[in-house]
């Protein structure tokens, strides 16, 4: 009997323990940012070249166990960032982490007027859409659904991004105006609904239109990261409070897509939990207003097409998208207007910029991109190290690897695959992880000439910016490619361009920079990249691929010519009609890497071999062509195409092939070709793959089935390991405000001292773009906004004159200071409450 009881107890304990195990505590804590100053000057000149680490070993681990695995020492970092839900666990574990700007979520409305006149779509009324901004508590959503890890969002531009920093005072004012205010929202909705002919049924508390309840079809996404489901439930409750009858339908992306993208005018939906991808650290969000609200949005789907915006907003959005301004101030003014008008339009009510978090050991030091984290930021691999140590093996965890074949032309674009290749590849410029600008990596300097009147501006000294009324393209510049004769087409006379960039490479580059197989980089590598930009899109080409055509046509619509001015040192001029406002981003390097090829770096001989295989119909660079021809997609890293490539390498060796000989023959000798092919043969025999770059690490070995790879420090790398060490952390300003002691007498002036520091030292005023203050009254309305006065380095003063305090009622007010740095894109906000009394 006692045994029976024991077995019963054991059985119950097992069942009970299973129930307990399914429960876990949830905590919320504010996010932190691991961060330094962007100067591309080495701090020392150690003997070590390449990366700080001896090896980086990639492996695939489950995101669910990533934190535990780091704690257990199984991995050192999980580069594929974890969602907000795991932020508390990361913080509790004491690990360092980098944040990554993720998807942003919005409540999208169907702004159409229904084809059925008896069906009323309340969100066809802009006033109702606008009012709902106050109906949703973004802070609540952030805390309850995103564990406080997101950024409440009001505008289509990146919250705390570069444009946001520029518009900080306006943005904060609008955020105060549209802050959560349920009662006001319901009242505004009621006013608009009544004006639209709806009536409130007193018994049910629901809106009626022509005798029927105003029913809202709300499509709530239940897939993805799962956060849109609780967000949808919250929004449903709020809409119900406002008197709507909500038909909440939970759907997957594929189920919801055909409805919200295609059935606006039929009114088969009214509200949708939309999600949009963030484009990294964006320096230019001016196109967002057109893209996120207006009928001529690139999105090209019904919700946008059927929106009927205010004509003024349409004009402002289009002017911004089409850069119809000539000065920064004009752009700023348009942006201010657009911010305000976007809130009035509210085709989408922006809810949150989500962030995810990439944890790593406290013994690891690594620089992260402020928006992109560490997974795909080249700077991460150039700076990764164990604190105070050179060498060692870093165990790098990823969510997946080798999701698609690797080739630089049209290969895998998955973040983890691109991340691993970022360590292998070099470039002419290094992206600044904190500002989104770029610094010369292999290039030495650049000149940019722009047509007079274009809104292009420079921030850094390595580039020279000049203007010209007309920019003629030299007659001998290359403007197109003849795939039959395999020669470039010269521009001839009469072509002009809007911009001309000239990139200068150092005189010793061809002696110091080597590919991982030991060959020195050469002009032929650059020219091969140029040819490949054209050849695949030409029907006459042996490697024609229709997948390349859309990209090529887009490129050609603004490309005006390229000219190799000098080969020693290498100087390349590029002429174009497209431009960005930042001069630093308008230079074209033609480096045989991501910029030219798209998905990786490669020496000419590897491309030549892959071209032979594709021309023979055995492989294809792109998935499209591979599928259409039912042949394998070219992979340089493994799989069935390696043997094919090896076969064509032997063929190239036998024939000593000079690819595109009529052009490449000018830049390449037969002896050089022989040497390149021979070293490629040796490389393949030793390494078992064709992935060759010029980065600080080389691909030592890849294990495709096991989903692992080993990167090894490339000792032939020309730069010292600490070249980019000054990017160790971003210079995010710390602001401290000291207000007047006691209450401020209404009508008297009030002085506030503002200290702006970094790491306890005064923040250099030359590194600060703006120190601005915003004064809010007791109701949260903005009373005044202006710049603070510089008193001394790191010390500013805000003086509110008597007439300003006279405008304040007795009570609690708020002074907020916004500090915008030139060194980092993230602004700092700090506020202080003060009391006014008669």
């Amino acid at each position, binding site marked *: 009997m006692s045994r029976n009881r024991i077995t019963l107890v054991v059985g119950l304990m097992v069942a009970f323990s299973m129930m307990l195990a399914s429960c876990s505590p949830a905590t919320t804590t504010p996010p932190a940012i691991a961060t330094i100053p962007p100067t591309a000057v080495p701090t020392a000149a150690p003997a070590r070249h390449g990366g700080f680490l001896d090896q980086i070993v990639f492996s695939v681990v489950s995101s669910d166990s990533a934190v535990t695995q780091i704690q*257990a020492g199984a991995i050192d970092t999980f580069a594929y960032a974890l969602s907000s839900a795991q932020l508390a666990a990361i913080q509790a574990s004491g690990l360092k982490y980098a944040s990554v700007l993720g998807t942003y979520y919005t409540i999208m409305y169907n702004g159409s007027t229904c084809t059925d006149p008896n069906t009323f779509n309340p969100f066809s009324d802009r006033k109702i859409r606008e009012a709902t901004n106050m109906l949703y508590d973004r802070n609540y959503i952030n805390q309850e659904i995103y564990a406080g890890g997101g950024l409440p969002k009001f505008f289509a531009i990146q919250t705390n991004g570069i444009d946001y920093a520029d518009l900080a005072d306006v943005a904060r004012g609008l955020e105060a105006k549209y802050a959560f205010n349920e009662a006001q929202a319901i009242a505004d909705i009621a006013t608009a609904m009544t004006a639209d002919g709806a009536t409130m049924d007193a018994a049910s508390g629901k809106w009626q239109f022509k005798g029927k309840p105003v029913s809202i079809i709300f499509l709530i996404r239940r897939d993805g990261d799962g956060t849109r489901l609780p967000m949808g439930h919250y929004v449903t409750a709020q809409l119900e409070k406002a008197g709507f009858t909500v038909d909440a339908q939970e759907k997957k992306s*594929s189920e919801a897509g055909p409805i919200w993208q295609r059935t606006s005018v039929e009114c088969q939906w009214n509200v949708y939990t939309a999600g949009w991808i963030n*484009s990294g650290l964006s320096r230019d969000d001016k196109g967002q207003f057109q893209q996120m609200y207006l009928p001529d949005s690139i999105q090209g789907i019904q919700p946008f097409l059927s929106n009927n915006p205010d004509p003024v907003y349409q004009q402002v959005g289009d002017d911004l*998208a089409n850069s119809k301004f000539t000065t920064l101030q004009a752009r700023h003014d348009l942006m201010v207007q657009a911010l305000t008008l976007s809130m009035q339009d509210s085709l989408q009510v922006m809810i949150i910029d989500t962030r995810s978090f990439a944890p790593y050991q406290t013994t690891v030091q690594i620089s992260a991109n402020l928006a992109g984290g560490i997974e795909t930021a080249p700077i991460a691999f150039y700076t990764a190290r164990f604190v105070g140590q050179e060498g060692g093996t870093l165990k790098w965890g990823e969510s997946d690897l080798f999701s698609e074949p690797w080739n630089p032309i049209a290969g895998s674009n998955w973040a983890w695959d691109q991340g691993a290749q970022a360590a292998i590849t070099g470039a002419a410029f290094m992206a600044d992880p904190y500002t989104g600008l770029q610094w010369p990596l292999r290039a030495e300097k650049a000149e940019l000439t722009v047509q007079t009147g274009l809104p292009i501006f420079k921030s850094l000294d390595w580039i020279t910016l000049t203007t010209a009324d007309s920019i003629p393209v030299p007659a001998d510049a290359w403007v197109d490619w003849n795939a039959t004769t395999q020669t470039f087409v010269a521009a001839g006379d009469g072509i002009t361009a809007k911009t001309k960039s000239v990139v200068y490479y150092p005189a010793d580059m061809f002696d110091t920079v080597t590919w991982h197989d030991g060959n020195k980089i050469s002009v032929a590598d650059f020219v091969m990249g140029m040819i490949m930009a054209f050849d695949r899109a030409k029907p006459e080409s042996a490697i024609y691929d229709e997948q390349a055509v859309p990209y090529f046509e887009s490129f050609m619509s603004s490309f005006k010519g390229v000219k190799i001015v000098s080969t020693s040192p290498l100087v390349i001029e590029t002429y174009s009609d497209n431009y960005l406002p930042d001069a630093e981003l308008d230079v074209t390097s033609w480096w045989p890497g991501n910029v030219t090829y798209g998905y990786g770096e490669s020496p000419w001989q590897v491309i030549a071999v892959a071209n032979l295989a594709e021309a023979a119909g055995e492989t294809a660079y792109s998935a499209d062509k591979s599928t259409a021809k039912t042949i394998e997609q070219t992979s340089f890293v493994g799989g069935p195409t390696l043997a094919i490539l090896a076969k064509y390498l032997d063929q190239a060796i036998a024939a000593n092939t000079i690819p595109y000989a009529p052009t490449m023959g000018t830049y390449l000798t037969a002896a050089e070709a022989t040497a390149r092919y021979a070293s490629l043969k040796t490389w393949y025999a030793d390494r078992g793959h064709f992935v060759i770059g010029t980065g600080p690490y080389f691909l030592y070995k890849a294990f495709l089935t096991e989903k692992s790879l080993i990167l090894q420090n490339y000792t032939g790398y020309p730069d010292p390991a600490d070249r980019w060490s000054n990017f160790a952390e971003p210079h995010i300003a710390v602001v401290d405000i000291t207000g007047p002691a006691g209450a401020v007498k209404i009508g008297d002036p009030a002085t506030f001292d503002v200290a702006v520091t970094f790491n306890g030292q005064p923040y250099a005023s030359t590194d600060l773009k703006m120190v601005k203050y915003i004064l809010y009254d007791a109701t949260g309305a903005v009373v005044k906004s202006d710049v603070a006065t510089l008193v001394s380095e790191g010390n500013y003063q805000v003086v509110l004159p008597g007439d300003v305090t006279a405008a304040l009622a007795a009570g609690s007010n708020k002074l907020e200071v916004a500090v915008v740095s030139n060194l980092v894109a993230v602004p700092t906000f700090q506020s202080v409450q003060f009391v006014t009394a008669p």
Partner: protein
Amino acid sequence: MEAGSQAGSPIVKKSFASSTFMRVIKYTGVRLVVLFITVVIAIYLTILIANMGGYVDTMMRSEIEYNVTQVVATNPANRNMTSEQKKLMTEQLISLEIKRRHLDQPLALRNATYLVDALTLNLGHATNMVSDTGSRTVRLILLERLPATLLLMGTAELFLFFSSLFLALTLSRQYGSFWDKFVIAMTPTSSAPGWFYGIFMILIFAAILKIMPFSGLVSTPPPANPVLYALSVLQHLALPAFSLFFSGFFLSIYGWRTFFLIYSSEDYVDMAKAKGLTSRDIERRYILRPTLPNIITNFALTLLGVWGGAIVTETIFIWPGLGRMFYTAIGAYDIPVIVGDTIIYAYLLAITVFFLEVVYVLVDPRVKIGGGGSQS
């Protein structure tokens, strides 16, 4: 009547053999045709379900439009393009993607192609997925995952099958004992799936004790020495295989035990006991033998089940198996992969069913092929 009275003569024997042979041939032929028709129907239904009668086309078009637009809009390489340039590129890329996925072809034609290709085992190319080594051929996508699945599922399922079978047999002879009651008490543990125990295993053996790996097929970087590689694979296999094994262990014993108990209480078993036969002889001759068709059926279906993999367990342990691959294929609407995986399962099932019918005849004298079905 005459022939019957001359039973045993060569003529009668020949006639009997001839008629038996013809009956077997006929039965076999009919069974094969029926099984083939079943496979055809199953595959066609799979194709119809996989594309939801064509609605998947609409969903895929919407997804393509959304995804391509997002890629063009957010690609840093396109930052300096005008809106018009982006729109044009988006339209062209959408058109290419629709063509690549054959959505520009009539659904009926695609379905027919999928069906014929599947039945002829021309598995073709995947529309979205690639194999671990980067191949887009469905054959390689399946073949590369097969060894890992066979290893994991084979180990777990075979251990589970044989251990539970023999332990159940023993317990059926010890009805009411402590161990019998213990197994009954522990049976609810099987209500939790393998992955549930997998999480605990990872927590205990990998995170706390740090004596086992968290996940993966082999340690990273994989050992170059084949022996060390094999040992590493075994080490990585231990937790997922044990998780699957443990989750089914007690329930399986319980099921077999109950099954054997029924046979243990037959009169002829009591008779054997009365005759003083040993327990071993009773188990082998009087319990196992009559239950052999059921055991073989169960074993064959267990082997067949190995093909399916274990979706969640494979996901938790990052085990590169077929289950995870099939799940990914469903999510990606990769019909060639779904159909490829299903057709092989369907053929294996058909072969197994056919094989079992033959085996029944061999192991159970009560079963007779043809002639109106089984007789006892």
